[in-house]
């Protein structure tokens, strides 16, 4: 038995995904990962019988440009953990345990992910109904010893960022272990989408992770279009891709500026802060909102562009391009900055592969995974952006991958604006296909965004799974800190720049 191939951005009938027996399912999963496939999603859904739970797995094969869906159904309140064999499943299994009250038997570090109640009557930790659940309220991994000390940071941070709790086990300045507790931003988005789509659904997606508005909205729109069998216009696809790349530009430039700020290098820090705003304003030129809210809607785009707007856009972009090159060029020329970036927070290719990292963090460690190239959808099927890969896996590599991507994104936008397809009437979205499974994978600026939707017999959403790239990468940050100086934590953290709310949903 094998997993079922499913094309990115398409839907298939649910009955074409056969439920495998557990041994087959586990063997297929292990076999796929052994051959270099990544687990893009692994989640539970209500089973056919009251006491059973369906487990879906989505595998992405970056070399063969294919994606596969697997399904199994488990009975009762537990299932065997595969984390020992497939490390990248560790957080997915904890999430299943939390959402469905299923105990992954043999999981090495079974803790809640977001500290929320399960969707079923079961609870994997046998907590009582009235017991208050506090994020970060569990025991943390502890290192014992006379000279070992513990440093707790957060959930309230010194910078104006999101809440998360970090627990360091240190020996002097050296970090032995870092454990990260999240869940403070949980809003219940997956549960709120059930029974949809309705008028709120798109807005949930746009605010799921505020800095990835276009990324998540693109995936959601693709899911809706796949289920409604809706053919969007080429022009809409180009505008979406431009929006996605603008989001990448603004965030990557902001990140490089913040990295410069963290090592106390002022010129790049100040210039990038301003230039990031310039790119956000370009997004506002397209749709009136700096973060791209309202730019996308299922079936196409919410705003078309006219010739005058394109001309203005190109004029501004040419100026910003020059300023971007100047500001960021300073960074690579400065020896003291490079001394801080190089060899800090190193993650080897093997570890990146084992943890299932995605996005710039994975490419910095030498993994060739970029959904725009390896799982292309939309306009990226026709116009590809070359993949940027480094192999040192340190803060420098993560910063330099961003810089390479900035250059390529600017070129891509300029090319696409020159050949933007003619306007055509946009299709209206019809009803969604019943009893179907739809998959959408996109490369947001932080990495792979994976959305999976399952519809019921009425064509309403029976399960909607969102996997933000941060969900894969938080473990990478914790690993990067091993045997590093604790004073380098802010720098490592910024080089990943992960989303708290994207993880907490």
């Amino acid at each position, binding site marked *: 038995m094998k997993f079922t191939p499913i094309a990115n951005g398409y839907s298939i009938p649910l009955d074409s995904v056969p439920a495998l027996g557990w041994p087959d399912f586990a063997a297929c999963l292990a076999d796929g990962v052994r051959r270099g496939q990544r687990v893009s999603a692994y989640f539970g859904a209500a089973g056919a019988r009251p006491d059973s739970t369906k487990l879906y797995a989505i595998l992405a094969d970056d070399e063969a440009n294919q994606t596969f869906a697997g399904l199994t159904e488990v009975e009762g309140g537990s299932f065997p953990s595969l984390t020992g064999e497939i490390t990248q499943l560790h957080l997915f299994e904890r999430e299943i345990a939390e959402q469905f009250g299923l105990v992954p038997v043999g999981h090495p570090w079974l803790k809640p992910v977001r500290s929320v109640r399960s969707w079923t009557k079961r609870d994997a930790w046998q907590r009582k109904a009235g017991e208050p659940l506090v994020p970060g309220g569990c025991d943390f991994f502890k290192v014992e010893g006379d000279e070992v000390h513990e440093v707790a940071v957060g959930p309230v941070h010194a910078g104006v960022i999101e809440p998360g709790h970090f627990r360091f086990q240190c020996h002097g300045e050296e970090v032995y272990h870092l454990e990260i507790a999240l869940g403070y931003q949980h809003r219940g988005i997956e549960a709120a989408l059930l029974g949809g789509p309705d008028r709120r659904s798109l807005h949930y997606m746009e605010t799921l992770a505020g800095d990835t508005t276009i990324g998540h909205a693109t995936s959601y729109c693709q899911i809706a279009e796949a289920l409604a069998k809706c053919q969007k216009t080429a022009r809409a696809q180009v505008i979406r891709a431009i929006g996605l790349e603008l989001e990448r530009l603004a965030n990557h430039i902001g990140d490089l500026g913040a990295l410069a700020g963290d090592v106390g290098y002022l010129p790049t820090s100040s210039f990038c802060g301003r230039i990031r705003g310039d790119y956000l304003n370009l997004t506002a030129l397209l749709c009136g909102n700096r973060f791209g809210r309202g730019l996308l809607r299922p079936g196409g785009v919410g705003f078309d562009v006219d010739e005058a707007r394109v001309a203005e856009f190109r004029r501004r972009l040419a100026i910003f391009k020059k300023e971007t090159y100047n500001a960021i060029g300073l960074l690579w020329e400065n020896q003291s900055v490079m001394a801080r970036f190089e060899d800090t927070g190193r993650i080897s290719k093997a570890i990146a592969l084992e943890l299932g990292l995605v996005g710039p963090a994975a490419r910095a460690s030498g993994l060739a995974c970029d959904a725009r190239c390896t799982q292309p959808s939309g306009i990226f099927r026709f116009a590809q952006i070359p993949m940027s890969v480094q192999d040192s896996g340190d803060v420098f590599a993560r910063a330099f991958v961003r810089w390479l991507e900035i250059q390529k994104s600017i070129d891509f936008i300029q090319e696409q604006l020159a050949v933007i397809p003619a306007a055509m009437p946009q299709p209206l979205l019809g009803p969604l296909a019943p009893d179907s499974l739809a998959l959408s994978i996109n490369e947001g600026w932080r990495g792979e965004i994976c959305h999976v939707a399952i519809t019921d017999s009425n064509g309403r959403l029976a399960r909607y799974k969102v996997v933000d790239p941060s969900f894969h990468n938080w473990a990478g940050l914790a690993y990067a800190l091993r045997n590093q100086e604790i004073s380098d934590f*802010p720098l490592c953290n910024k080089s990943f720049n992960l989303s708290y709310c994207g993880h907490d949903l």
Partner: protein
Amino acid sequence: MIINLIVHFCLLILMPPLLLGIINKVKALFAGRRGPPLLQAYFDIGKLLRKGMVISRSTTWVFMAGPVVTLAAVFCAGTLIPLGRFAAPISFTGDLVLFAYLFGLARFFTTSAALDTGSAFEGMGAAREVTFAVLSEPALFLVFFVFVRLSGSLSLGEMLHLAPAGYVSGAVAPLVLVAIGLFIIMLAETCRIPVDDPNTHLELTMIHEVMVLDHSGPLLGIALYAAAMKLFVLSSLLLHVLQPFKSGLAWLDWLIFAGGMMVIAGTIGVVESVMARLRMNHVPHLLVAAIILCGAAFVLLVR
């Protein structure tokens, strides 16, 4: 004479925050920003002194004494050091040892107040502060040895007031080395880039700022003011090496002194703008370099 004493105390009390203003202005210019007003540090300290305080229940009198004793110690050090070409208010043989250990006293109370809070951050900051002090203190004494050797005196007033003639007779090379070493010591002692970043908000990377993290209101204002005064006192020490000339006119000499201090502040601003801070475990390398520079200067003189 009396007028010079009054000017000495006026400058010591009033000028330190201006140096911070100059540094921040230079940094802003490099970053393409307008930057805060030149007098912002005065406004900040004034604002803090008028605020209330939040004091943790786990602290004792040591926490309150930290900034106060630090300011008093730095102020006393400021009375021992001659400013420009004028005599210091207090001067006696061997005052250089008192000068160095007044900073030691300040450090003891700052770090004790930090440890008194029981916070993990402040403990780390205190550990870093004393670790780096172990290296900067011998470097400072080597600087003094060079001057003692050159002047034959053990009093700060006499040894720092070398005649320009003393400079030409084979002492130029040692004094250049001492100037560089002293500049590094000053950056480390006053927690400037590349050793520490006074502007960072990241408590895990801080040295000095993290030790005053729990101080608020007037205590924080005093801590800020004491840090500025320390910068002033150490800068005036460096200025003696860089500017040995004397015009003979009191008002002109005071102007030259004030101008020299501003130039040093501007130089610190430039250094902070063009380089990133060092990785924490590389800071000792920089301080060892300062020891080697000052030690080499001393060896050149006694060879």
